[in-house]
């Protein structure tokens, strides 16, 4: 760049520049697009994402609608980023029937302002007028599809009609914007409904995201027509789940039943748009526009009322779908299904019971699905929500158990297994899944689910503190491999992150660590919040001796999975295998970090009372707090924390007497205590603390002679004893202790190896003692 560098600013220049920029201070929030470019007027609306203002763009002299975005709690940055990407894509669309998005930044969106009313506000319209408007909208939608943008939330509220002259002009609003809003606001954690899922296409309501495409918008246009003709939405429900279920399972009431005078051809067009299967709808928005045009001109339309055979098949497949919940149920052969229908008709009572069962199963599966996704979202939403996720899952588990107390149903066992797995209770999950497999060997998702649980058991069973691995280890691995092989037999049309994750797990179980790492990396590339993938990467990297990467993924995993036991176990695994005792950054972790960790561990103890590691981790935090207090000269604070730490380690060692790390740390605590209490020929308690410290460290090194930190701590202890001996004029004793200290320091250095984070300290000590 050829510009001269700006000279250093003088204090006077700084003062003047700040004065020139002062208005920023008063209005930092609106300035996103351009601080003073927009003159804000009345508030047009408020939504989950922010406030919409009528505004005037002074620079280009036009009126705009300015949506100033707030950052709602619970909306993650990734969602915001996605939202922004969508808005930017929409900003490329320029069409006479699309309200233009002028610009989008992380703070605000400027879009074309349309004066008029939405179709939902417009009251009853003449069917011809309505068909014209929807035809125009369909043409606009078709144009957008050509640009690669799908609206995904078409409904009467998103079609705006401007009646400027004799003709009404329709605008499609909120292109590409509404989708993220719906995701974030309509299914909030509390379960309250904000959005209008009644207009969602079945593939959206069922969460089959990969099927969402142009024909989703065709459905939306059809649903809009339906609502405007009938005066009510196609589906209504008491709550969002009932509503979603209706969208997936039920046909809307026929238009002819609601509006007796509706033209049958127009009703047929609507029905074709709203077919459950995307493939049964118009192939494009253009095809819909053309058919509406034909109808308007009085020509024969191309849509045909569904045949009897089609209706029958759909009825059957729906029933089967209701039973085989969560499992793709499309494409049931008509011939195979017919006898079932006849049979059921003959035994009405039995069929009735079966239907009830299917219904309650469906309810349960919805709850399970919701619990699983909510728990995941909740965990990711940060501190304070971890118990929320735990309770959501526990609630669903209780429901399953209650259902099982009445009847033993394979599917319910299957749900239970999935929930337990999500809770990190893999051993119980395995029992449930095995039982499900006995009852219903044909459950489609079972091999994969079970394979993943077995793989997780294998992953977490790798020893933390040198204990012997469980005998089942090899069985788990072999069974996981078999299950995963089976479930990955086909090729998915679009491999999802979960699919690739399963492939990664398979590679691991087959012993190909490199391939496993590769696959898991692919997973986190696709879904950065894929918790299990991060956990697995943590373990895989530590097996491959890439400690830095292992640490990183274990930290990410434990951040994503607050209150999730395997995350902490994996963290402990990685950290202990890297030779560093449990907590990263002994020096750098800020105080808030310590407190946060303590909260984590307290939660963990609520979930799993009596877990030795958790006591150990809690002791660790107390120890760090004590060190910190001591550095600040706060002797009482240090003493108090040390005593608490010792108690934590006592608890840990009561549960697991051979917990080497706890022994080392209790030893360290006691050593600190002794120092603070006035070591040497001082009070009795200091001497006892010193004795305790030495005993702990001796025992720890008996259990694991390669514990570098224990050697180091014992060396310090011995150095201290040597100094005490010196003070007592015991030259021989001082020399002996010093010798021993040196031996320990050397042993620490030797055990530490090249990469040990504390290596330099060990070196320092050896040098000092040489």
């Amino acid at each position, binding site marked *: 760049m050829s510009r001269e560098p*700006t000279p*250093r*600013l003088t204090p006077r220049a700084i003062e003047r*520049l700040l004065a020139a920029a002062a208005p920023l*201070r008063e209005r930092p929030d609106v*300035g996103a697009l351009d601080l003073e470019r927009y003159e804000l007027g009345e508030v047009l609306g408020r939504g989950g994402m922010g406030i919409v203002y009528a505004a005037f763009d002074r620079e280009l002299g036009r009126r705009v609608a300015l949506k100033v975005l707030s950052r709602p709690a619970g909306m993650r940055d990734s969602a915001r980023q996605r939202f922004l990407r969508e808005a930017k894509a929409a900003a490329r669309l320029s069409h006479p029937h699309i309200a233009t998005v002028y610009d989008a930044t992380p703070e605000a969106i400027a879009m074309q302002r349309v004066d008029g009313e939405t179709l939902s506000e417009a009251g009853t319209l003449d069917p011809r007028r309505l068909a014209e408007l929807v035809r125009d909208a369909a043409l606009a939608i078709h144009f957008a599809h050509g640009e690669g943008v799908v609206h995904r939330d078409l409904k009467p509220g998103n079609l705006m009609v401007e009646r400027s002259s004799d003709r009404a002009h329709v605008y499609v609003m909120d292109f590409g914007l509404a989708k993220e809003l719906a995701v974030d606001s309509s299914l909030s954690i509390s379960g309250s409904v904000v959005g209008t899922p009644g207009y969602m296409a079945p593939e959206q309501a069922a969460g089959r995201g990969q099927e969402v495409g142009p024909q989703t918008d065709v459905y939306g246009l059809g649903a809009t027509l339906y609502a405007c003709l009938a005066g009510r939405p196609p589906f209504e429900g008491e709550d969002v789940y009932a509503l979603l279920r209706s969208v997936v399972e039920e046909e809307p009431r026929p238009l002819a039943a609601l509006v007796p005078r509706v033209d049958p051809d127009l009703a047929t067009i609507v029905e074709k748009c709203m077919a459950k299967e995307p493939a049964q709808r118009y192939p494009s928005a253009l095809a819909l526009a053309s058919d509406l045009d034909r109808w308007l001109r009085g020509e024969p339309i191309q849509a045909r009322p569904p045949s009897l055979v089609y209706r029958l098949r759909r009825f059957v497949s729906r029933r089967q779908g209701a039973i085989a919940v969560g499992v793709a149920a499309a494409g049931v052969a008509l011939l195979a299904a017919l006898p079932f229908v006849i049979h059921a008709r003959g035994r009405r009572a039995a069929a009735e019971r079966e239907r009830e069962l299917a219904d309650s199963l469906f309810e349960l599966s919805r709850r399970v699905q919701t619990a699983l996704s909510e728990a995941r979202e909740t965990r990711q939403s940060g501190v304070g929500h971890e118990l929320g996720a735990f309770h959501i899952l526990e609630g669903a588990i209780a429901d399953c158990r209650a259902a099982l107390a009445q009847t033993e149903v394979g599917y319910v066992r299957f749900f239970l297994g999935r929930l337990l797995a999500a809770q990190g209770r893999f051993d119980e999950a395995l029992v449930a899944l095995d039982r499900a497999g006995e009852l219903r060997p044909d459950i489609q998702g079972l091999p994969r689910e079970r394979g993943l649980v077995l793989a997780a058991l294998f992953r977490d069973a790798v020893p933390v503190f040198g204990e012997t691995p469980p005998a089942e280890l090899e069985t788990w691995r072999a069974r996981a491999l078999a299950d995963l092989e089976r479930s990955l037999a086909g090729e998915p049309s679009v491999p999802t992150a979960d699919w690739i994750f399963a492939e990664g797990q398979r590679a691991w179980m087959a012993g190909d660590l490199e391939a496993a790492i590769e696959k898991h990396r692919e997973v986190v590339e696709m879904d950065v919040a894929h918790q299990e993938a991060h956990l697995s990467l943590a373990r895989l990297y530590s097996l491959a001796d890439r400690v830095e990467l292992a*640490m990183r993924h274990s930290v990410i995993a434990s951040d994503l999975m607050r209150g999730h036991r395997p995350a902490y176990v994996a963290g402990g695994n990685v950290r202990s295998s890297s030779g560093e005792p449990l907590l990263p950054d002994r020096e750098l972790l800020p105080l808030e970090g310590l407190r946060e960790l303590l909260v984590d561990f307290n939660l963990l103890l609520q979930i799993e009372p009596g877990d030795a590691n958790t006591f150990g981790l809690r002791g660790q935090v107390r120890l760090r707090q004590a060190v910190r207090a001591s550095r600040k000269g706060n002797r009482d604070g240090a003493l108090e924390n040390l005593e608490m730490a010792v108690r934590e380690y006592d608890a840990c060692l009561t549960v697991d007497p051979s917990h080497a790390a706890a022994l080392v740390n209790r030893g360290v605590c006691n050593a600190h205590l002794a120092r603070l209490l006035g070591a040497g020929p001082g009070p009795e308690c200091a001497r006892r603390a010193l004795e305790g410290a030495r005993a702990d460290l001796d025992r720890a090194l008996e259990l694991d002679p390669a514990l570098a930190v224990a050697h180091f701590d014992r060396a310090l202890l011995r150095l201290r004893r040597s100094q005490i001996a010196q003070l007592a004029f015991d030259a021989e004793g001082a020399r002996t202790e010093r010798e021993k200290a040196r031996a320990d320091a050397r042993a620490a250095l030797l055990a530490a190896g090249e990469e040990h984070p504390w290596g330099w300290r060990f*070196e320092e000590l050896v040098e000092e003692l040489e």
Partner: protein
Amino acid sequence: MSQDADLRGTPAFPSTRWSELVAGPGQGDPDGAAARAAFEALAVRYWRPVAAYVRARGARDDDEARDATQDFFVWMLESGFLARLDRSRGTFRGFIKRTLKNFLHDLERKRRTVRRGGTRNLLPLSGAEGDLDLPDPAGRDPEALLDDVWRQELLARALDGLEAELAARGKQRTFRVFRDYFLSEEELDYAAVAARHDMTGVDVSNALAAAKKRFRAHLRACVLETVGGDEDLRAELAWLFGGENAGRASEAGP
């Protein structure tokens, strides 16, 4: 009605934003390579304030401050600290202050043990080049000094952005008017600036109004790069305009 979707003259929203960095490795960036690059970019921009702090904390001269600053950023990049950024929310400035203190503390201890002449891992940070021209630290509180230089850097960067934008729009003269009015030692008034550029007083007034508006937008964008969210933005702006006390308050955090 114009369908022109181009917001001419709006500063491009920077890709190196602190909020994106603290969000951790993202899609398509599993190793955090992009995050690393983003961090380097931020580091280059805020090199001087860090060096000023280091200098005030007892570095013998600018060169020693330069070395320690270099070490600090290298350490940030290599220690895996970036992967854990989300633990320390708040502004980039607050984060730098907290980490820097710890780092220097550690560095001093290490220096006492590590033998002289060891290898040093140098990283090509362009901020390390040229004359640092650090303010005299005598009798100054290091943190206050960091804040002062930080404020200078923000304003200088906004000024650079303004100049680049106006040049790109062929309005070099508007920038010169702005510069003469706000930055010249003589503190010219409208008439003097008008005379210098052969303009009327009204022209000067209009040019200044337009340039001030753009300057604010650039300044805001610069501050935005270094904060994690809306609340931080407010706090950081309050600090920027309000001097040291406001700055302190914004760092208290939760």
